[in-house]
Structure formats: structure tokens, C-alpha cells
């Protein structure tokens, strides 16, 4: 497909020298290119990518094409989709244009997903790598901490955090990051424990590499594949989380997000299905996109699965 073609092209231009050298030995390929090729063959991954690109276009190009202000009251409240030509997807409980809301809600939903996902992965990798690399007492202490965070029902804890602090989308992202890192930490730890005693790590140590260098420059790059897969899934989970909080009315009331639309339309569910169903469908589609891309990456990075 054109997108991966572009990626491969960009990659080739960057690494002229290695391509020329690779031509001498046609059988050896960079793992990155090989993974990209496998990703291209995975229908799940490509479908996910197409969905995400479509959503990104909808959210970022949409506002330029469809210039209706999402906060403006344009028609009678709870007009059904298709009833009036000027408001194709109907209006919400205040008479605001649903389509405009959907278009403008995407950016903030994606912002929360990416920020919270980034935070989750960062905390998870920090805790997991320390725990897996040093082992012993450090591992014991950090794993107890991880266990503690796994015991807390994440949504309730996030609800408390968002109640204590004013609910801006940044605070919401931080709250989601704080409650969701344990899974990433466990994954990172397992990868580090697997890799830390391999020969190339011992080799690095024998030439005098310090712990920091071994952790970040030797082990981490080699454990990236499963972490990237889990990161895409983490973004999806974060988006679902934000939607859940917004549904409970704990979102940022000043920012249009899909979750906020759902929270606002909650009481009209039986009278106006579209106020909930449409933003819910957008969230579903976005999370689906991320998890399909995760599936595709998993196939691409995992040579054992690839053979099947």
C-alpha cells in the first residue's frame, strides 16, 4: 500500500550506504525492512492503519472543510440525523451540530490517548527496566509497588484523582497514566530478565560498559518490539479510559471530546440514540484502529508467528 511504500522509500534514502552494501549480499535484510514487509502483508495491520489515517484526516482536515462551530447552537435540540439537510448528523441536547462535535472531538480524544499512552509506557519502562535489570531487592520493592497499583481498581482511583484536581484534559491524561502502567512494567521486566544474561550483554559488560549504558543502549533497543506492540494497545486503552471518565461526567467540560459528548447525551439515550451512539462509534473505531495496528506489528515483529 502507498503508505508503507512511502516509509520504505524514506528509509532507503536515509541509509544509502547500507543499501548498496546489502546489494552484495542479497539474502540479508535489515530487521526493520523485514518487519515492514511483514506488516504490509498483515491485513489487520493495514486495515488498522487505514482506519487511523482516516480518523486523523477527519479530525485535523475536517475542521477546515466543515466550518461549523461545535459550541454554536444551530438548530432545535435533539434533531435526528437526516431530518434537516443543514445538520446531516442531527443535533445534541442543546441543539449543537453533531457532525461538528464529532470532527472537533477527535483531536482532544487523540491528545488524551497519546499523552496518557506515552506516560504509561514511560513509567512502565522505567519501573520494569530497573526491576528486571537489577533484580534482588530493587526488583522485590518495585514489584510490590506494581502489585499495589494492580490491586487498585484503576477507574475508581482515577475518578478520585480527577475529583481532587480540576478536570483538565492534561490532569485526566496524567491520572490515566498513573493508574495504567503496571502491565507495561511487567512486560518490560520480563524482557529485561530474558535479555540481561545473553552473550551480547555480557560482551558489552566485559568491555566496560556501565549499567546505564547497558540498560538504555543495549537491552532496551532489543526489547522494543513487544513494547511497541503494547504501546499501541495502551493508547487504545487510554482512549477507552478517557471515554469512561467522561461518560461519568468527569471529563473536561470546556473541551469538546467524544467522551464528553457521550457524557452529555447520557440522559437522552432513549429519546435520541445518536447523541451517544455516534461518538461511541468514533471511539470504537479509533481503538479498533490502534488494536489492529498492534496486531499487525505483533505479526511483523514476531518471526515465529510470521511463518504460520
Amino acid at each position: 500500500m502507498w503508505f508503507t511504500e512511502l516509509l520504505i522509500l524514506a528509509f532507503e534514502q536515509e541509509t544509502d550506504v547500507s543499501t548498496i552494501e546489502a546489494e552484495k549480499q542479497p539474502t540479508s535484510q535489515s530487521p526493520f525492512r523485514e518487519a515492514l514487509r511483514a506488516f504490509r502483508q498483515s491485513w489487520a495491520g493495514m486495515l488498522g492503519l487505514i482506519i487511523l489515517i482516516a480518523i486523523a484526516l477527519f479530525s485535523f482536515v475536517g475542521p477546515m472543510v466543515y466550518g461549523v462551530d461545535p459550541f454554536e447552537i444551530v438548530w432545535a435540540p435533539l434533531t435526528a440525523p437526516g431530518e434537516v439537510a443543514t445538520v446531516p448528523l442531527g443535533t445534541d441536547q442543546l441543539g449543537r451540530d453533531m457532525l461538528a462535535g464529532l470532527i472537533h472531538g477527535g483531536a482532544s480524544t487523540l491528545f488524551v490517548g497519546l499523552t496518557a499512552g506515552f506516560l504509561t509506557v514511560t513509567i512502565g519502562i522505567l519501573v520494569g527496566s530497573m526491576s528486571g535489570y537489577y533484580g534482588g531487592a530493587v526488583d522485590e520493592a518495585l514489584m510490590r509497588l506494581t502489585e499495589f497499583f494492580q490491586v487498585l481498581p484503576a477507574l475508581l482511583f482515577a475518578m478520585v484523582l480527577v475529583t481532587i484536581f480540576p478536570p483538565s484534559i492534561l490532569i485526566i491524561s496524567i491520572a490515566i497514566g498513573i493508574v495504567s502502567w503496571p502491565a507495561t512494567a511487567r512486560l518490560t521486566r520480563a524482557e529485561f530478565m530474558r535479555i540481561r544474561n545473553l552473550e551480547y550483554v555480557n560482551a558489552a559488560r566485559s568491555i566496560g560498559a556501565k549499567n546505564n549504558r547497558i540498560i538504555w543502549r543495549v537491552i532496551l533497543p532489543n526489547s522494543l518490539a513487544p513494547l511497541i506492540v503494547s504501546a499501541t494497545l495502551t493508547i487504545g486503552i487510554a482512549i477507552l479510559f478517557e471515554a469512561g471518565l467522561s461518560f461519568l461526567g468527569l471529563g473536561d467540560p470546556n473541551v469538546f471530546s467524544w467522551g464528553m459528548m457521550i457524557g452529555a447525551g447520557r440522559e437522552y439515550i432513549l429519546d435520541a440514540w445518536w447523541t451517544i451512539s455516534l461518538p461511541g462509534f468514533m471511539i470504537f473505531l479509533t481503538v479498533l484502529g490502534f488494536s489492529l495496528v498492534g496486531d499487525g506489528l505483533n505479526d511483523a515483529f514476531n518471526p515465529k508467528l510470521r511463518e504460520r
Partner: protein
Amino acid sequence: MNIFMLVVRRFLHAFLLILAVLVLNFLLIHIAPGDPAEVIAGEMGGATEEMLADIRKSYGLDQPVYVQLATYLGKTLTGDLGQSFFYNAPVLDLVLDRVGATILLVVTALIFAIVVGTLLGVLASHNPKGIVSGLVTLVSVVGYSAPIFWTGMLLVIMFAWLVPVFPISGMFDITLSDDFWTRTIDIAHHLVLPALTLGIVYLAQYARLARASMLEILGSDYIRTARSKGVSELSIYTRHALRNAILPVVTIAGLQFGSVVSGAVLVETVFSWPGLGTLAFDSLLARDFPTILGILFFSSLLVIVANLVTDVVYRIVDPRIRTGN
């Protein structure tokens, strides 16, 4: 290590986790902006100066922090979770009143997910490229991506308009008689949609997990041995493979208890199920802090107990873990 020592160790471990949750609750009260006494009283409680002075005295808020912490831990461990000024009742009573409904919902959903999920996974493993297998993958991807309250609302819309056979709100019909069986059937009837909504998410994951572990087990040596000595295909699936395939499903289910409780909060809100979730939602709207913290504590307690039970039962059931390391 013998099993008794192990159980004792797990219990100790669980107790430490409970203490940690309480310390976190204590920290949350103090992190919250404003006077802790007012936080405890709750913003909507309309607490008078007298009440605040009372709280300050009973929580020892004029004492050093570590004394306050000790007072708080002592109070909570003896069952005093504070007073809700919004509901004008002890938090413990409020929580105990609701916790049964949540446990009923969560356990029903999990059992449904485990049983149906494993069954689907086994069916799918029989023919890895067949229709069931594809269906399992499809359902798991969709079930995973749909916001749980959205699925719930779609079910509400469907069962409110199209086929009104299941009630969409509440836990029982107060107009029915108080007779035990009538009530039980009525509650079960109300339970169908919420449990289905909550269960679908996990059902999909368990089906996928059961399918993967069945495929792995079916390729193992001991299954080949069983086949070669002429054990029937049905017996291989049910007696030899399934036993091992269900273990990872049960383990994951135990570990996910916390996430299921989180999901229950949303599902309860959609279906007005009178559990901890709706209580949490109502007390959040009222900014009734003691109640929210009480719910956080109690639901963590539920998760800790569920993990403990899974862990111990698992070790007793599986001889490899019992004797190994």
C-alpha cells in the same frame, strides 16, 4: 515450602497490601486542596463549624502527621470508615449495603465469560482456520475496542425498543411479591443485560487465550501419547487438554478482577444497578469524599481477597505449582 506456610505468607502479603491502600487513602485526603477536615466533611455536606471541630478532634488533625496516620489506620481497621455527611450515614453501612450487588454482578459476569469463553476457545482450537476461529478473533477484537458503556447502551436501546424481554434498569421490581423464589428469579432476570455487557469484554479475551493454550497443548507429547494409545478424541479434549487449557484462563481472570470491578462501575451506571459503582457515581457528583474513599478501599479489598483466593486455590489445584518453585 509447604502449603500451610505459603498460605500464611500470602495472607500476610494481602494484609500489607490492605495497609498500603489505607495509607494511599490517607495521602489522598491530605493532597486534596483545602482543609482536610472540610475534605472529610465533603463540600456538599454543608458542615457547620461545630462539625468541622468535631472531625478535627476525632481524626486528631491537630496532631503530628504520623499520629494522624495511626489514628486513621486504627479507625479504619476497626470498621470505622467515617461518616457520610451527604447520606447522613456511616460509610461502612452505605458500602456494605451495596457491595453484595456488585459482587453478584462481577462474579456472574466472570463465570459467564470464563465458561463461554473457554468453550468458544476449545471449539476454535478444533479447527484453527475455521469459522468459529475467525468468529472468536472478530468478537475479541470488537469486544476489546468497544467502550463498555457504549455496548451497554446499545443493548439498552435494543432491548428497550426492539425486543423488550429483559428489564434495562435496576435490580428488582418492587411491585412483585417478597417471596424468595419470585425475588430470586426477578433479580436473575434483571441481571442478564448488565452481566452480559460486562462479560462480553472478557469473554472475547478468554476465548482467545483458551484457543492459544489449547493449540499449544494439543501439539504436546502427552496428547500424542494419549492419541497413540487410542484415547477417544472427545476424551482427549475434555479430560486431557481442557484441564490444562483452563488454568491460564482462571489465572488471568483472577488477576483481572480489579479491571472487572472498574468495568462494573460503568455498567452499573448504565443499568442503574444498585452497587458500589452507582454509589461512587452519586457520591462523586455530591463530592462526598469519605464515601468515595470508602468505596476505593472496599473495592481494593475485594480485589485483594479475589487474588488471594485465586492464588491459593490455584496452588492447591495444580500439582506442578504446589511442588515446584
